[in-house]
């Protein structure tokens, strides 16, 4: 699966500049002015607001199965979430979810 080279480099360039500007914003440009409290409040929710919506359609309708709901991928997703919430750690969650995914796919291919 090839991705259009011009698109990739354009994404990289704009993302690099944009990310730098976000990081430089207050430190370099805006200076020592406090953020309005409502903005701070909203910003704290960005990762938890963006990532679930990004991932949810992939869990229910994976690209790799042409949108067919796949019990193995679903189980792997639930395992990852459970381990992440219980351990509060990212890596154990990735390891557990990947293990369920790989073993499950092998088993379903064999069965």
């Amino acid at each position, binding site marked *: 699966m090839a991705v259009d080279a011009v698109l990739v480099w354009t994404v990289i360039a704009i*993302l690099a500049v944009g990310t730098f500007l976000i990081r430089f914003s*207050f430190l*370099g440009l805006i200076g020592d002015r406090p953020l309005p409290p409502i903005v701070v409040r909203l910003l704290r*929710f960005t990762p938890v*607001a963006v990532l679930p919506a990004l991932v949810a359609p992939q869990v229910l309708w994976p690209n790799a199965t042409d949108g067919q709901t796949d019990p193995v991928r679903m189980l792997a997703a639930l395992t990852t979430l459970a381990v992440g919430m219980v351990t509060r750690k990212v890596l154990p*969650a990735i390891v557990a979810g990947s293990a369920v995914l790989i073993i499950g796919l092998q088993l379903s291919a064999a069965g």
Partner: protein
Amino acid sequence: MFVVVPFGLLFGVVAMDAGLTLTQTMGMTMLVIAGAAQFTALQMMVDNAGLWLIIAAALAVNLRMAMYSAALVPHLGKAPLWQRALIAYMNFDQTYAVASIAYEQNPEWPVERKVTFFFGVATPIVPTWIAATLVGALIGKAIPTDLGIDFILPITFIALVGPMLRTVPQMIAASVSVAVGLILSGLPSGMGLLIAAACAMAAGAATEIWQEKRSATWL
């Protein structure tokens, strides 16, 4: 702190699997240096989203770093501009976490000492991140694509979110994000994501404000 090693490895593997070249993978990792945003951009490219939707989604994931930038101003605001620019380039989750704790504990440090400390923290992390990505990309070339690698990317996102779900407002934000994201998944790739994210942020913030008001009236 050295979560950057497995994370960099993983980005290398997944980027190559998504169809990026080695140069593109390394270019992205060196210029953007923001794991979650890089993974987001990859997923959006795989989903064939349009350019501006890819950018908007990935930058939305990075918005939290505006907070880091603001939080460092009282400590580093008086450093020379070139030093602040360099610090901004390396101001990501791990470096910010270590530096901000040290600054809280040592408020008497002069600004030069604080700048030196930041560079001291960042100097080993940045090359480690880049090297780990390179190793991952080289491994990724060798892994057969039918092992379910496609789904490692969603697993990574879920693993990032799971530990963040510590409070009711965060859980509500994540649930709204999932629900709206699914309902709007018929829209062009990325459009539903941004609307879902906006709803989720509002829902999380509103829940938090409501909780604070309620506990205030109990006092």
